């Protein structure tokens, strides 16, 4: 597929809009269907498409695996961090009300951050999974 210029160029063109769409789903999740998971998967699928067309090594060059690992943990840390901050501010775990000036704005901030955490983790896990599977070589380890 590497030698197919049509596919390569169309992938390059589609790459940015897909990620844009992912971000839209991520941040529009409060108003329409969507949210962290879906956005994460869409963003991940952009990278997966890239890796499919240009090869896994190129994909890893685009998105190095150590950054992938850090972001993978970071998503969870953001999520947990929101909970811990709310705990430190004197409320229960994941009680977003204290995060903002009013309960509603607190909830908004909380949900935004939390969804961001979910999105980060999901997208990075999906990319990591794909990379791990696709670059697994079948030679018997001896």
């Amino acid at each position, binding site marked *: 597929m590497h030698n197919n210029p049509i596919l390569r160029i169309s992938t390059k063109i589609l790459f940015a809009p897909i990620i844009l769409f992912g971000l839209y789903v991520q941040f529009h999740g409060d108003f329409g269907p969507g949210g962290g998971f879906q956005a994460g998967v869409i963003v991940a699928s952009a990278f997966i498409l890239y890796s499919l067309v240009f090869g896994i090594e190129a994909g890893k060059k685009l998105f190095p695996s150590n950054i992938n690992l850090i972001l993978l943990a970071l998503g969870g840390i953001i999520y947990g961090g929101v909970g811990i901050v709310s705990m430190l501010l004197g409320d229960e775990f994941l009680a977003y009300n204290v995060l903002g000036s009013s309960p509603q704005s607190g909830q908004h901030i909380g*949900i935004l951050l939390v969804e961001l955490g979910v999105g980060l983790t*999901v997208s990075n896990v999906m990319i990591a999974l*794909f990379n*791990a599977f696709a*670059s697994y070589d079948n030679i018997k380890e001896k």
Partner: protein
Amino acid sequence: MISELLINAFLVTIMLSIAIALIKTRTVIFTVILTSAYSLVAALMFITLDAVDVAFTEASVGAGISTILFLAAMAYLPKKEEESISSEFVPALSCIILGGILIWCSYDLPEIGQFTAPIHQHIAPEYIKGSKEDIGIPNIVTSVLASYRGYDTFGETIVVFTAGVAVLALLQKKDPAKKNKSQPKQKIRKNA
């Protein structure tokens, strides 16, 4: 109402036929594609059942990502499924029994779509009301997901994280350069 029923019936028939085809087929690529199709049809079904977010997720996660994972894994696996020697009678029987129990109990389940069912009366109204008042987000699913049951979602993020770490740890590539350096290990052990 009839049209809803029709769409439902149509999709369900497709799902059943896919499932039966899955039992029949022994080719791995077919199995994978049929699974993907099953997820896709399930996503359509979710749409007709008013679960937009779920359909969204099922389409992207269930149909998209898992299919790609299946395909990626399939590349290294045998392409055909062998016929098993052992009888499939006992598993089939136990499945039929379980299914029978479920069908038996379904007579006491609330009818589909009935507004008076306890499930719609007990907690759900508070979410629908609260989402507007307490949280101020139109998408109730998001508000329940991220706030009311935010801890579930946290756990689920952790599940995804777990799976990621697990797969990374399992399928870690061994550095071919380091293969020869296994000798010092031996020494440590003797000292231990």
